[in-house]
């Protein structure tokens, strides 16, 4: 056990970790925003579409959900530019990957949410003369959002953790910061203790805040 903890070097390089944490959060927020958009559009399309569209959407969902995230990250960053003539930074590439990834999970969340909206509500909407579009926007979506809010929070939290995979294409988020300090100072145990604490504190603070939002939303209706 010839190892004494020494956190001095960690604090000296703490800006790497702090900046990394902020970037992790940024990546998660942008990705879930785009993911929600993808998820909503595809879910609404799915429940009203014919068989062909359903098959295509289901194929997208199943493909993403059954392949490791790290492989998708490599595929988009290293693979895609070899066949399509596009250039993007590692960060943009990761956001694109994580958005498609979260989109696939959210299609499922929203689809089951839409199907859970009670039939009577839609009939009531029809009875008071709402158009199909009004029924979707004023009846179906608000009810669906309330049902799916807890699942949304959970997806956001797991996306926040998934941002650590961005370190494999050198996006300087929190895990990358940890590795940088690890390789440059060799204060291995210290840096991972600090980073673990940072992930935990941020994650549980987010969870707490999201649960408050959920409760408010439920009380308001």
């Amino acid at each position, binding site marked *: *056990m*010839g*190892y004494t903890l020494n956190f001095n070097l960690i604090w000296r390089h703490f800006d790497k970790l702090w900046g990394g944490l902020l970037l992790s959060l940024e990546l998660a927020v942008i990705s879930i925003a785009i993911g929600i958009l993808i998820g909503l559009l595809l879910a609404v399309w799915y429940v009203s579409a014919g068989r062909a569209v359903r098959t295509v959407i289901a194929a997208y969902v*199943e*493909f993403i*959900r*059954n*392949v*490791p*995230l*790290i*492989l*998708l990250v*490599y*595929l988009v960053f*290293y*693979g*895609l530019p*070899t*066949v399509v003539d596009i250039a993007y930074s590692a960060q943009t590439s990761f956001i694109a990957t994580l958005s498609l990834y979260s989109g696939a999970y959210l299609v499922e969340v929203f689809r089951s949410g839409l199907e859970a909206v009670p039939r009577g509500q839609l009939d009531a909407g029809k009875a008071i003369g709402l158009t199909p579009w009004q029924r979707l926007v004023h009846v179906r979506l608000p009810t669906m959002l309330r049902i799916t809010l807890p699942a949304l929070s959970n997806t956001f939290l797991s996306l926040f*953790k*998934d*941002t*650590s*995979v961005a*370190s*494999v294409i050198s996006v300087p988020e929190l*895990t990358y910061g*940890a*590795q940088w300090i*690890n390789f440059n100072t060799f204060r*291995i*145990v210290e840096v*991972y203790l600090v*980073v*673990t604490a940072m*992930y*935990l504190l941020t*994650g*549980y603070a987010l969870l707490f805040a999201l649960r408050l939002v959920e409760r408010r939303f439920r009380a308001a209706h």
Partner: protein
Amino acid sequence: MLGQIAYALPFLAQGFAVTLWVSLLVVVLSLVAGVMMGVGLVYGPAPLRWAVRIFSDTIRGIPILVLIFFVYYGLPAVGLHLESFWAAVLALTLFKTAQVIEYLRGAVGSIPKGQSEAAMAIGLTFRQRLAYVIFPQAFRRFLPPWINGVTDAVKGSALVSLLGITDLMHAINQVIGRTYEAMPLYILGAVIYFAVNYALSLASRRLERRFSFIRE
């Protein structure tokens, strides 16, 4: 191009075998550890319950990647030298164990309290209550999410490539390093992972349907 990939296939197959081996070890070890700790969480004395709760909430609160690096780089510093393969298996097992604990807690928690009380009333010991009353009923709730979670183990195993272990993911990257055929090989890799995991999730859905009715 196709020739090069065909040439690389045996190498990829070796990597795939490592992926399956890692996944299998993780699934089996975490099942044993998770069920034991889960029982501790539900039935144990308060200090044990707190210990398991803290373990589970901590592990589930950090990214698997951080856990893998922590175990791999951190253990030698405290005098434990594990080969990279076993460090990776240990880290993934810790992660999966936390999941199994929660599946077990959910499954056992869904059994009405009266079942336990009735078993106690007819004089069954704790072990008998678990073996003959609680577990047979909790099993149907435990199985579908657990099998679904096996896909997480297979997907998570791709992260061991970062410790230089030649699993399927690492084998693909090595072949790409030599042939520069990035896209076809990543797609091939995706198809292989997909085939394994999709089969598993189909199985879990089928089991879920089979066990979805509850005899009250």
